[in-house]
């Protein structure tokens, strides 16, 4: 945990410097008759972020905060496994939206999670995996007219569009 604290503070400090640099694409000083330039707000806030990172590093050096003196590991084997299995599945679900749309990726994700991570029966897993997209379709696409992406599965929805939209 102690190593993670200093690594994170350093990364956040680099991010702050990047944001300061990025802010200078617009004027950060005073423009006559216009007031502060467009980059001033984000530039000075990023500068404060940098100061906070240095402050956190100083606290790490003094071992004055709980993470800076903790001997626990940042991520144990269980946490790492769940992070990869759950985070990975969510990432794949979002990636698949570009190809098979939400109505393809959502049932696949639900089926994977419910059956393999949750250990539920095939019946329960199938039932929820199929019911969720149907409810989402009627709530978002039909009732609220927020058309969710369908990817290559779009032609399958044409008959539904002609009935409900």
């Amino acid at each position: 945990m102690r190593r993670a604290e200093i690594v994170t503070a350093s990364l956040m400090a680099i991010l702050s410097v990047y944001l300061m640099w990025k802010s200078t694409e617009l004027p950060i000083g005073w423009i006559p008759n216009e007031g502060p330039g467009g980059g001033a707000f984000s530039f000075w806030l990023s500068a404060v972020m940098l100061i906070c990172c240095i402050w956190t590093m100083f606290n790490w050096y003094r071992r004055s905060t709980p993470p800076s003196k903790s001997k626990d590991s940042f991520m144990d084997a269980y946490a790492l496994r769940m992070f990869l299995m759950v985070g990975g599945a969510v990432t794949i679900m979002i990636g698949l939206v570009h190809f098979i749309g939400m109505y393809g990726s959502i049932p696949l994700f639900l089926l994977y999670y419910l059956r393999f991570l949750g250990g539920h029966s095939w019946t329960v897993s199938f039932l929820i995996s199929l019911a969720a997209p149907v409810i989402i379709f009627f709530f978002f696409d039909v009732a609220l007219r927020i058309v969710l992406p369908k990817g290559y599965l779009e032609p399958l929805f044409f008959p539904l569009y002609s009935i409900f939209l």
Partner: protein
Amino acid sequence: MEILGLLYEGFLIALQPLNITVVIIGVIVGLFIGAMPGLGSVNGVAILLPMTFLVPPTSAIIFLAALYYGAMYGGAISSIMLGIPGASTAVATTFDGRPLALKGLADKALITAAIASFIGGTISVILFTGFAPPLAHIALDFGDHEIFALMLLAFATFVGLSGDDIPKTIFSICIGLVFSAVGLDIMSGEPRLVFFDIIGFMHGINFLVLAIGIYGIGEMMWTIETNRGDSAMSKAVLTLSGFLGSLRDMGRTWFSWMTGSLLGFFVGILPAAGATPGSLMAYGVAKMTSKDSDNFGKGEVAGVVAPESANNSASTGALLPMLTLGIPGSPTTAILLGGMVIWGLVPGPLLFVEEKEFVWGLIASLYVANLFSLLINVAFIPLFLWVLKMPFTILAPIIFVLSLVGGYSPTQDMHDVWLMLIFGVGAYLLRKLDYPLAPAVLAIVLGPIAEPALRQSLLISNGDFTVFFTRPISGPIMIIAIILLVLPALKPLKNKFFSK
């Protein structure tokens, strides 16, 4: 007496069968739209505005006002049940509503949220009835300086009272504000902070992308790690004794809902402020004045009651400048204003003289909508609790799916969904190192109000910062904010001197 007579006539209109029906439909639709992550009252009102042409203008505005109220109640439901704020107005409810649900006290959180919403709504409608025109003019005295001072106060509350690591809290606020600045610079129109020239950053970062990332993805991954196979999210049940206990809690937290209602109403009537800053400030004040301030963030009822009374109160307050001056106080009222113009009504001082039937029918219907919102919300609580009793391994993937859909809905851009995932993973990792993330959400919501207010104030004063301290309203607010900011620095000194 004249007001009471007009209100009586208003009730005769509001209690007509057609209007009662539209109130009930509006509240139920609003409740579900508000409860859905990613959708708030503004989406509901915008989507359903065209449907209101089927009924007379008075019934139409009554329907939309009921929907607006229902969505305010509904926002608390996803905050408490899923830990994802349904809309920005319900962000503050998440801070204590979610911990209460995790403790198995979801029933208490939902009931107190509903009752606090009712109280906030009722107090604000009473204030609206009695003092609409003079209050609208006081609101106009709040210029950019005062608005910025109020925003600074909201941030200072977090730093001074949070009890979290100070540099990490300030870091969180600043990064939220920087994210709020992404997109087109509102004053010069130039693109700003468009990272790696990705076009999706041009439309800015919607607050929901960050909020759903943090609460829907990051918080869920954290819960999965810490629960380690724990089966249910909440085992709460609705019982009569639990209901009565919640009523007693309302008595105990009377100061929180009273200040929440008054503060919410006043912040709500300020142009461009709306219900979100009102509810966040009410939370801050409740924490500041509470004897149990250490319990805030861990499941304190007052932490639910204060923001919920404030956001409903503010939602009524935001109608006030819209009706009396034609200035909308929030995005939702801006759409309502558009609707009124389409119906041939001209908002402004003359509306109260020329369209008495419309104005008083609306005011009376706010009382009616508020009562129905409470009754309908309480009637649905057993259903919400049943959902929470689902095994966590069913609820968790459903929350991930709702996060995906909720992250996509506001801008309908997959760029935002990817950004939400990055924020979620980042939030999960930062949370492990005690970085508080609620201030970042607060900052991205308030940033678009704070930045123009600061820049315009400085432009008016030609770069002179002292102007914030010399104006009669902003001066005292700034001083309180600065006291709160230095409070953590004074704590070690206090311990040093008083421990001897």
